[in-house]
């Protein structure tokens, strides 16, 4: 076996942890400029990680304010107009600044070239430009906050968005710029996967995270321009009075919804596909078993990417014609097939495996459970007769959060903990990680499960006030959100604690066989001493746990 493990770097790593005093990307150069102008994919990934977590904090604060306001009917802390701004900013910040770049740009940037055994991504400068674009877009979002906020909801539906007095243009421009950031990342990853695969890594020997990131990248490049066009048309109508969506000017407001959802439905898969990639890695490694149904999981990523373009109309069942409704309802059910293929294959991977219930695996198991709930409730919404009743109610809010939070955020946390030792070179304390997990898991279900019930009872989404009979639902939901917030603060403590007090991470703490585990933790600036040769990423049989190293080492190395 020709591997980097035979190199001095890997021997160091497997022999007893890779000390931060040795050459690694974190300490190879110092000063803020060496970070913000770096071309190193790992540093860009870390900068993305810090940036998106800041956005997550901001969006989370708005979520807590929303839940606090809704804890009792009538005015609790803010008036209705301010509340509208809170939920709009919660949605816009979470979607555009956190979830979309979350896994691909933060975790993907660090891990993708390492998994390929490459020195860097194909276009390092474009990669840095992508982060700067993100910063520019985020700055415009902050400008919106300072100039009176925005109250349209994250969907910017016309005609309200062309008539409201709030700062629609700054935030829409911000989202437009963030779109470019997303396209840059996608383009970079497509070329990197095509051109920089190492010897031995055929398409069907790529780690499944790479398949997922690749499918995501295709979506980012194909779908995001449509969002850019849509938002520019919105600005043209709002600023210049060009009639596109306003009936009084000869436009059609439903056209906005078509445009918006033609991007935003694939965007949902931009958010969930990389999450599925993370789960494929974590489930297989922490079951100590080869992934089951590799080709099915890989190709279902591609199928999801294609089908995601054909179902945007299911967001518009109450505004479209009956014929279009029927077509989109039928197409919507097709997406459940590849999603279910993945879930069944993960379960089959775990079957008779040796499950290691560490923090990443707990998040992965939560993902499978919560994503299944989210997916199955999606079938309710895809069915026309049911959708009419629950459209624009808390049922939709709950479904969406089960998929996006229960799905993507849980997978993001799984991936963050899974690759944390690789990124930082430090191990976190399992007890803190697990405590945070349970708080987040219990808090999440307390917050959102009750919203399914509230929705079926007729509680509309986005309302500031509600009749007395909905109070218990809202109280329970709000209590859940505070439990969840406590979980995130424990998680933050856990990770910061690991940076200061955590033990040095071995090269391969979990026993994976994809190439990122072949290099020290944290990796040297050049990633590998020489280009490694890939083998089956899910064959863990050669890696044995070494008590001295407190990680996995490979026999014969």
């Amino acid at each position: 076996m020709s591997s980097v493990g035979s190199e001095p770097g890997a021997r160091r790593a497997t022999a007893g942890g890779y000390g931060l005093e040795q050459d690694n990307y974190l300490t190879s150069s110092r000063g803020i400029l060496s970070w913000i102008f770096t071309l190193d994919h790992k540093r860009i990934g870390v900068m993305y990680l810090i940036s998106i977590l800041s956005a997550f904090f901001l969006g989370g604060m708005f979520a807590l304010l929303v839940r606090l306001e809704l804890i009792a009917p009538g005015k609790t802390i803010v008036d209705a107009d301010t509340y509208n701004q809170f939920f709009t900013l919660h949605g816009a910040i979470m979607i555009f600044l956190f979830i979309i770049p979350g896994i691909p740009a933060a975790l993907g940037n660090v891990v993708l070239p390492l998994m390929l055994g490459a020195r860097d991504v194909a276009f390092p400068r474009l990669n840095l430009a992508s982060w700067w674009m993100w910063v520019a877009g985020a700055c415009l979002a902050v400008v919106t906050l300072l100039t009176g906020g925005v109250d349209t909801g994250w969907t910017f539906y016309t005609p309200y968005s062309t008539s409201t007095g709030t700062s629609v243009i700054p935030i829409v421009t911000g989202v437009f710029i963030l779109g470019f950031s997303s396209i840059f990342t996608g383009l970079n990853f497509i070329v990197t996967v095509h051109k920089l695969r190492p010897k031995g890594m055929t398409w069907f020997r790529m780690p499944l995270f790479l398949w997922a990131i690749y499918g995501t990248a295709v979506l980012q490049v194909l779908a995001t321009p449509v969002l850019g066009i849509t938002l520019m048309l919105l600005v043209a109508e709002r600023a210049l009075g060009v009639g596109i969506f306003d009936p009084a000017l000869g436009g059609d407001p439903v056209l906005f919804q078509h445009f918006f959802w033609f991007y935003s439905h694939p965007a949902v898969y931009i958010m969930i596909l990389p999450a599925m990639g993370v789960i494929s890695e974590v489930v297989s490694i922490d079951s100590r078993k080869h992934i089951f149904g590799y080709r099915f999981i890989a190709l279902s990523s591609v199928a999801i990417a294609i089908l995601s373009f054909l179902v945007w109309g299911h967001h518009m069942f109450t505004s479209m014609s009956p014929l279009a409704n029927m077509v989109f309802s039928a197409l919507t059910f097709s997406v459940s097939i590849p999603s279910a293929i993945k879930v069944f294959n993960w379960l089959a991977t775990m079957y008779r495996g040796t499950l290691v219930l560490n923090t990443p695996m707990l998040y992965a198991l939560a993902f499978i459970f919560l994503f299944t709930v989210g997916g199955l409730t999606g079938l309710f919404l895809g069915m026309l007769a049911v959708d009419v009743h629950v459209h624009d109610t808390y049922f939709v809010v709950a479904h969406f959060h089960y998929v996006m939070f229960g799905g993507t955020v849980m997978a993001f946390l799984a991936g963050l903990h899974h690759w944390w030792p690789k990124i930082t070179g430090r191990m976190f304390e399992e007890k803190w990680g697990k405590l945070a997990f349970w708080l987040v898991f219990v808090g999440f279900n307390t917050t959102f499960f009750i919203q399914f019930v509230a929705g079926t009872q007729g509680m509309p989404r986005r309302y500031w006030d509600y009749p007395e009979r909905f109070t218990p639902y809202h109280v329970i939901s709000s209590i859940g959100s505070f439990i969840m917030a406590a979980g995130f603060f424990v998680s933050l403590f856990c990770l910061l604690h690991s940076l200061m007090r955590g033990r040095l991470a071995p090269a391969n703490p979990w026993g994976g066989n994809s190439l990122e585990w072949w290099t020290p933790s944290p990796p040297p600036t050049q990633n590998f001493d020489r280009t490694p040769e890939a083998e089956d990423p899910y064959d863990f049989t050669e890696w044995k746990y070494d008590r001295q190293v407190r990680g996995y080492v490979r026999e014969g190395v």
Partner: protein
Amino acid sequence: MAAHATGHAAHGAVGHVVPIRTLVGVLCVLLVLTVGTVGVTKVDLGPLNLLLALAIAVVKGALVLLYFMHLRWDRPFNAVVLISALVFFMIFVGLALMDAHNYQSEMIPGYGTLTP
């Protein structure tokens, strides 16, 4: 093709080089087709006017892609990417228009038409 071969040898690093004669020829065809697009607007052919204008636009677009953007000499994969993008665009516009067409009759008076 001899010129092409020389071009390849001389400019291997920059990819395929299209001879000036071909480029000028394509430019002339595009100009003639532009005149044709304007010309057919002077004749009333009913719905055929629109179809003809679109057909000419498709031919012009194809010429630009094939010669100016080198698709004719590129790997077939690039054509697959282009055709996929066109298919997705057609799905998008097709389904959106199908929907708009269906609710046309239910629209409020004056909806969707230019008001003075």
